[in-house]
C-alpha cells in the first residue's frame, strides 16, 4: 500500500542514476514532507508494523464504553464497528477485485435474515450461536458465489447493473416472502421479530440494561472486527491477494499470464459476501428484528462513500472512512452539532489549503469581513432580516456573522440553494485571482444556505452531504484518503 521505492531521503540530484527509475523517484519524493522534525517523526512512524497500529486502535476503541456511559454514544460506536466490517467486506470486492458490486448490502440482508430464520421463534429453530454464525457465513459465501457467476461474462457496467438488480430482487423477495406459495417465509414487510441474542460462553448477551445499551455487544463486535481484519490482511498478502491485484490492474494481462480470472472474481464476491453476512448476524441479534427496507439503496451509498473516502484497496483506509462517516452522519442529525461541523470544516479547509498559499488566508479574512459587512447592511435595511431565533453559545456567535432572518420567504430556500450550486460550479470554472474573489461571496452564501435552509431539515441535508462527498471525491481524489494513487497507463 505504501510505495515501495527505495527510501528517498535524498531527491535525485542531477542526471540519471543506474538502477533507479527517475520518474518513480521523483514521484515518490513529491509525497514527502520537507526536512524537519515532522518528517523525522513520520519516518519513525512508518516503520511501526501494521499489527501494532491495529492493537493500538482496538485498545482506543475498547475505551469508548469506559469513557462514555451514554447508551447513545455506545450505540453509535457499535453501529460504526458494523460499518467498519461492511467497509472491509466491500473493499474486497471493489478495492481488491476491482468489481463494481452494487448489490452488496443484499448479502448483509441475507446474513441478517438467515440468522433470523435460524435463531428465532419464526420456525422454532434455535441453533446455538457457535453453529449459527459460521453457518450464516457459509450461506453468505455461497450467495456471493452464485451472484458472482454472471460476472464471468460481464464487464464493469453490466456487472453493476446485474448486481443492482440483485439488490432489487432481494428486496422484492423479502417483502413478498410472507405469501410464497402460501407459506410465510420471510415475514414480508413486517419482518422477523424476536430474534435470539448471541449466546457466548454460556451467557446470552444482554442488549440493554435499564434501557441503556450494554457493552457486551460492542466488545463482541470489536472482536469480530479484529478477527476479520487480521484474516483479510493475511489473505491480501497471500497469492490470492496478489492475483486480485493483478486482476484489478489489468484483467487481460492477468489472463494472459495464466491467472484463473473467473475463479478469482468469484472468490472476491464470496469473501465480500461472507464478511457482509457475518455483519448481518451481529445486526440481527442486536436489533432483535429485521425488516426488508433496511438493506436498500441508502445503506449502499453510505458504505460506498466510506470505502471511497477511505481509499478503496486499503484496509486501514476503509476503516478510517467508516470511522469518519458514521459518526458524522449521526452528528448531522442534530442542528447544533451540524453548525459546528460546518464551520469547522470551512475553517479547517481554508487552513489546510492556506498552508500552500497566502492568498487563501487573505480570502478567509476577506470572507469574514464581507460577512460582517453584509450582516450590518442587512440589519440596517430591515432588522427582521437578522433577528432569527438565537441559540446560545456557538450559535449565537455565528448569528452575528450570518444573515438569519426571522421569517423566510418561501422563494428564498430554492433560489439561494440553486444559486449556491451555480456559484460553486462557477468558482470551479474560474482560475487564479478571479477564483479567489468569487470564492468570498460563495463561502458566505454557503454559510447562509446551511444556516437557514439545511439546518432546519437535517435529514435530507445529511444525505446531500454524503452525495456531495461522493461526487467531489471521484472528481478530485478518487484514491481517497489512504488509497494508492493508481497511474493509468493509457
Amino acid at each position: 500500500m505504501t510505495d515501495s521505492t527505495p527510501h528517498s531521503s535524498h531527491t535525485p540530484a542531477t542526471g540519471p542514476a543506474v538502477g533507479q527509475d527517475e520518474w518513480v523517484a521523483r514521484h515518490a519524493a513529491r509525497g514527502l514532507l520537507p526536512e524537519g522534525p515532522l518528517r523525522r517523526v513520520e519516518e519513525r512512524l512508518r516503520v511501526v508494523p501494521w499489527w501494532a497500529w491495529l492493537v493500538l486502535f482496538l485498545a482506543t476503541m475498547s475505551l469508548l464504553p469506559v469513557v462514555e456511559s451514554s447508551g447513545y454514544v455506545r450505540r453509535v460506536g457499535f453501529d460504526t464497528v458494523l460499518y467498519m466490517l461492511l467497509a472491509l467486506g466491500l473493499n474486497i470486492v471493489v478495492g481488491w477485485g476491482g468489481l463494481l458490486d452494487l448489490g452488496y448490502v443484499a448479502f448483509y440482508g441475507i446474513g441478517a435474515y438467515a440468522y433470523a430464520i435460524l435463531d428465532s421463534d419464526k420456525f422454532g429453530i434455535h441453533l446455538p450461536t457457535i453453529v449459527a454464525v459460521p453457518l450464516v457465513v457459509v450461506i453468505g459465501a455461497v450467495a456471493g458465489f452464485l451472484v458472482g457467476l454472471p460476472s464471468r461474462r460481464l464487464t464493469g457496467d453490466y456487472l453493476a447493473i446485474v448486481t443492482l438488480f440483485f439488490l432489487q430482487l432481494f428486496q422484492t423477495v423479502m417483502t413478498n416472502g410472507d405469501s410464497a406459495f402460501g407459506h410465510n417465509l420471510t415475514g414480508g414487510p413486517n419482518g422477523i421479530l424476536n430474534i435470539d441474542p448471541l449466546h457466548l460462553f454460556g451467557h446470552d448477551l444482554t442488549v440493554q440494561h435499564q434501557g441503556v445499551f450494554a457493552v457486551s455487544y460492542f466488545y463482541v463486535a470489536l472482536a469480530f472486527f479484529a478477527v476479520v481484519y487480521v484474516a483479510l490482511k493475511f489473505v491480501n498478502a497471500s497469492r490470492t491477494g496478489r492475483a486480485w491485484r493483478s486482476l484489478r490492474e489489468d484483467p487481460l494481462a492477468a489472463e494472459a499470464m495464466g491467472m484463473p480470472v473467473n475463479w478469482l472474481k468469484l472468490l472476491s464476491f464470496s469473501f465480500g459476501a461472507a464478511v457482509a453476512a457475518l455483519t448481518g448476524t451481529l445486526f440481527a441479534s442486536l436489533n432483535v428484528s429485521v425488516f426488508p427496507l433496511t438493506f436498500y439503496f441508502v445503506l449502499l451509498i453510505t458504505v460506498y462513500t466510506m470505502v471511497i473516502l477511505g481509499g478503496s484497496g486499503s484496509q486501514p483506509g476503509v476503516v478510517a472512512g467508516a470511522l469518519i462517516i458514521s459518526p458524522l452522519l449521526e452528528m448531522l442529525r442534530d442542528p447544533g452539532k451540524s453548525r459546528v461541523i460546518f464551520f469547522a470544516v470551512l475553517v479547517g479547509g481554508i487552513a489546510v489549503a492556506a498552508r500552500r498559499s497566502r492568498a487563501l488566508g487573505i480570502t478567509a479574512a476577506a470572507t469574514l469581513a464581507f460577512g460582517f459587512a453584509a450582516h450590518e447592511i442587512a440589519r440596517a435595511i430591515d432588522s427582521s432580516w437578522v433577528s432569527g431565533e438565537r441559540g446560545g453559545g456557538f450559535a449565537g456567535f455565528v448569528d452575528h456573522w450570518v444573515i438569519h432572518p426571522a421569517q423566510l420567504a418561501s422563494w428564498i430556500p430554492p433560489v439561494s440553494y440553486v444559486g449556491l450550486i451555480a456559484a460553486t460550479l462557477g468558482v470551479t470554472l474560474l482560475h487564479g485571482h478571479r477564483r479567489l474573489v468569487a470564492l468570498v461571496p460563495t463561502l458566505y452564501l454557503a454559510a447562509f444556505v446551511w444556516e437557514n435552509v439545511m439546518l432546519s431539515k437535517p435529514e435530507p441535508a445529511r444525505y446531500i452531504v454524503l452525495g456531495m462527498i461522493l461526487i467531489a471525491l471521484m472528481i478530485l481524489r478518487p484514491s481517497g484518503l489512504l488509497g494508492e494513487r493508481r497511474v493509468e497507463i493509457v
Partner: protein
Amino acid sequence: MKKAIGLALAVLAATVVAASAQGGQQVSTQAAAGVSCSGTLKIAFLTPLTGGAGFLGNEQGSWAKYAVKTLAPAMGLKVQLVMGDTPVEQGAAVAQTLAQKYVGDKKVVGIIGPSTSGAAVAATQTFFQAGLAHISPSATKTDLTKSDPSTNGGKLEGTPAFFRDVPGDYIQGPTDARFMINTLHVKKVVIMDFQEPYSTGLASAVDRTLKAAGVATSRLSASNTTTDYSAFVTKVPSDADIVFFPTQKPGDAQTFAQQLLEQGKKAKVFGGDGSNDSSQFKVPGSYVSNFAPDITGFKADAKIIAGWKKDNPGKAVGSFGPPSYGAVQIMLTAIKKACVADHGVIKARHDVLRQMKKVKISNWILGGKFAFSTKSNDPLNAKFYIFQIQSNGSYKLVG
C-alpha cells in the same frame, strides 16, 4: 498532499470531539436526582421525516410543534420538541439508535411516537426499560396494545409504556367491514394492500370480518412504490362493489378511483384513515374512514386551526396532524401532573409514565372527551367514523 489530508483529519477529529461536547449529552444513567420543572424539559418525536412516508412525519411534526408552542406556556412549562427521523426505509435500526439517544438525554421526559408501527415495535422495549412513556399518534398495529392471534402467535409486541391516542386496527378493520356489510350490502369486495405493515394488518382485519359474513373477497397486493394502478384496476371484477384501499397516500386513492372510472368499473373506493385528505382524494361516491370527524367543522377547534394555518401557510389540514396535537396535549398534561405531584421536580421518568394513564382531556381536539381505556393503553370508546365524498368534494359523515 497526504500530509495535508492527515492534518485535515486531525482538525476534523478535534472538531468531532468539540462538537460532541457542544451537544451537551447528559451522561448519567442512574436514576437522576430529578429534572426541575422550571427549567427546559424536552420531549422527542420519532417519526419519518424523509423517504416514502416523509409527508406523514412532516405533517405530524407541524402539529406537534404548534401544540408545544401554544399549550406548554399555558401550563407553565418550558418545553422543547426534538424531532428524530425514522424513515421507513431504514427500519428498526434507526429507531433503536434514536431511542438510545433520547434515553441518554436526561432532559427528555416523554416521547411522542414512534409514528410507524415498525419503529414502535423496535423502540418500545428500550423506552419501557428506561421508564419513558411514549404515545403514538398513528401506529395502529393491533398487537402493540392488544394481543392479536393472527400475528406473531398472539404475543403482545407493545409494552405498558406504550400509549396511543388513536384506535388500533382491531377497531378500524371490523368497523369498516361492518359498514360495508350492514349499510352498503356488499356482495363482492376487492381488498388491496401495499406490502407494508399498516396496510397488510388492516387489510387482513377487514378480510376476516367480511369473510365471516359470507362476502366474496379477493386480495390484490401492490408494492409500496407503485404509483400506476391501471393493471390492478383491470383485475377488479366488473361486479365488485367496493375496493378497500388502505393506503397512506391520499393521492394514490384518488388515482385509483379515477382509473376505476376510466375503465368503467362500478366499484367504489373505500379508503382507510390514511387516505383522508379532502384536497387530494375527492372522487365523489368514494368512502373514507377516520378516527375523527373532520375537525375543520368543529367550532371548538377553530382557533387552533386558524393558529396552525398561520404558522403553516399554504398547507391543508390533514388527518394525521390533529392526533399529534392531541398526543402532545396528553403528554404535557401528564408532565404537568408529575411536576405538581413532585413539587416542581420530576424525580424519575416513571412519574410521568404513572400519570399518563390517568390523563383526561375535556376539550379533545378530535371531539368530545378523551380518556384511556382501563383495559389497554388505547383510547376509551374509540370509534371510527365513515365518510362519503359528495359531488362537491366534501366529506359527509355517513356512519
